[in-house]
């Protein structure tokens, strides 16, 4: 019988010829992603690690990114605890402060191998579906148990199929596409489900697929996944993962879908997600003119080189509004270095931007750019929840890098098509 991507990966992982939607299978993930929360995770296991040991030294990928450099003694102590764990147990894949945002690092460093399963104690682990990984978020306790056993259970999800037709016409971007989809389907529209992307995927770069897969969890999806085509194969090769290191999986042509949607990419327009839910999606024109106080360019959603380029193309040789603080958060050291070498960072700083270290920064409201009551931030990140940027009386709108750059220039929400 024809099977979806999720069914095929889970059947293979469970050593069964086929699995049915709703079935529970035991799997041994290729990797377990953890970040600053590693301190709390291993904190649950003080005695257990001595009794049972770490199951595999190459299972965890640990990236310090959420509150970097440490903002106070407590977070510094957390980081120190993570380094001590890494040292003591010989954890193979550890990336200290400044290497980048965990999800970017996983893909960039070649850990995301098509057809494998990766779980992570972070909801945006779903990002690795950009290169055909069954990747999904779990909680800290499950991560702790995985360190001891290397295995967990997954329920085989139903699948939603989204077919893309045609090409995006810049400055309309992958961010506008995924926001449009979430606006249509709703914040719970893909709860417990897998989302497969089909159709003219070849026109999307891996950076664009990453932006889309990253936001799958904002519609409740368990995984969001793209086929491994030439574009992906080339990207992976450059990341040090040649074709013989993985066995890609894709859905059978007649696979059963719970729901099917089609998008005409050429017909899309720039959109924003207005406070306080990601599915509150409006054409940018509906909120144009709204005064902003802070603009955030970057994060795991839109902090790649092409995103910085899109913003720099608008800002080069101009000045950001004096009323706006433009914060730039490159997704990794590699992105930072490349943007520094090619002059993008200079163009952004000359326009008035503040460049933050490659990490999560203000995205989760812990430090580096907290809002004051009544302030409005336009952000390329993935969540506009109340309080997300550290202040529950602040407002967050989500948009693409081009929309954020155009709006930073004018000091108010601006359709990037109106900025020449």
């Amino acid at each position, binding site marked *: 019988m024809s099977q979806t991507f999720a069914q095929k990966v889970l059947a293979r992982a469970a050593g069964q010829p086929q699995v049915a939607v709703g079935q*529970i299978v035991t799997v041994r993930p290729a990797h377990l992603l953890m970040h*600053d*929360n590693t*301190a*709390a995770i291993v*904190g*649950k*296991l003080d005695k*257990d690690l001595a009794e*049972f040991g770490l199951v595999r030294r190459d299972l965890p990928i640990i990236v310090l990114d*959420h*509150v970097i450099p440490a903002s*106070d003694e*407590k*977070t510094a102590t*957390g980081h120190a605890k993570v380094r001590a764990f890494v040292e003591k147990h010989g954890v193979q894949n550890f990336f200290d402060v400044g290497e980048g945002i965990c999800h970017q690092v996983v893909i960039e460093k070649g850990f995301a191998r098509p057809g494998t399963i990766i779980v992570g*104690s*972070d*909801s945006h682990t779903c990002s690795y579906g950009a290169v055909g990984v069954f990747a999904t*978020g*779990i*909680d*800290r*306790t*499950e991560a*702790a*148990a995985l360190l*001891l*056993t290397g295995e967990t*259970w997954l329920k085989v999800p139903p699948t939603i199929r989204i077919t893309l037709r045609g090409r995006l016409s810049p400055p309309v971007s992958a961010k506008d596409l995924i926001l449009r989809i979430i606006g249509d389907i709703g*914040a*719970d529209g893909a*709860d*417990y489900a897998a989302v497969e992307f089909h159709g003219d995927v070849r026109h999307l770069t891996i950076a664009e697929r990453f932006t889309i897969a990253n936001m799958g*969890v904002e519609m*409740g999806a*368990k995984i969001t996944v793209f086929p491994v085509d030439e574009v992906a194969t080339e990207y992976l090769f450059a990341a040090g993962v040649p074709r013989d290191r993985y066995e890609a999986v894709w859905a059978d042509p007649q696979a059963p879908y719970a729901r099917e949607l089609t998008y005409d990419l050429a017909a899309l327009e720039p959109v924003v997600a207005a406070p306080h*839910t990601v*599915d509150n999606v409006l054409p940018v024109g509906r909120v144009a003119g709204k005064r902003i106080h802070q603009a955030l360019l970057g994060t795991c959603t839109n902090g790649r080189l092409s995103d910085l380029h899109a913003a720099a193309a608008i800002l080069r040789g101009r000045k950001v509004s004096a009323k706006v603080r433009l914060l730039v958060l490159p997704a990794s050291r590699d992105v930072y270095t490349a943007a520094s070498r090619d002059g993008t960072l200079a163009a952004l700083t000359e326009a008035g931007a503040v460049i933050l270290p490659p990490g999560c920064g203000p995205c*989760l*409201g*812990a430090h580096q750019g*907290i809002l004051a009551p009544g302030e409005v931030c336009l952000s390329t990140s993935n*969540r506009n*929840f*109340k*309080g*997300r940027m*550290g202040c*529950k009386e602040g407002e967050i709108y989500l948009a693409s890098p081009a929309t954020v750059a155009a709006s930073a220039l004018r000091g108010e929400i601006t359709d990037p098509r109106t900025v020449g």
Partner: protein
Amino acid sequence: MKVWHYGDDINTDLLFPGKYTYTCATPDEIRPHLLEDLDATFAQGVQPGDVLVVGRNFGCGSSREQPVVGLKAVGVAAIVAKSFARIFYRAAINQGLLLIECPAAVDAYRAGSTLSIDAAGGTITVDGRAYSFPKLPPEIMAIGEAGGLLEYTRKKLRAQRAG
């Protein structure tokens, strides 16, 4: 028993603000911030045995187990929802917090309704009318019965070693 009643798409930032995620880990540290940006009266007012009745997609957003740990620690007996977001759902299983997916019961509930839950029987009664809800499969139920995922894991590993 008090019922705390909230709407749809309650995300984990509302249940426990992100700014505390790296500074609060123990139930005592978590408790004062529970539902802080959703309902400022909750942390003070919640009592053991209380129940939450909520809408669709409860617990969406960040992977954040602090609200689950906190709600369990203050003795919340169950959360009854139209639906849950999946990471929150797994986190609740792993802490042994009872989650009940029962849209009909949520629809029937009004402020002041009487409500009781028979977890073993799989029914919830609102104003005298009983609604049944699906129970977890036995292999998942075993996690909660063991006292949560870590206890379950320890038992399993010791049994493997002994066997």
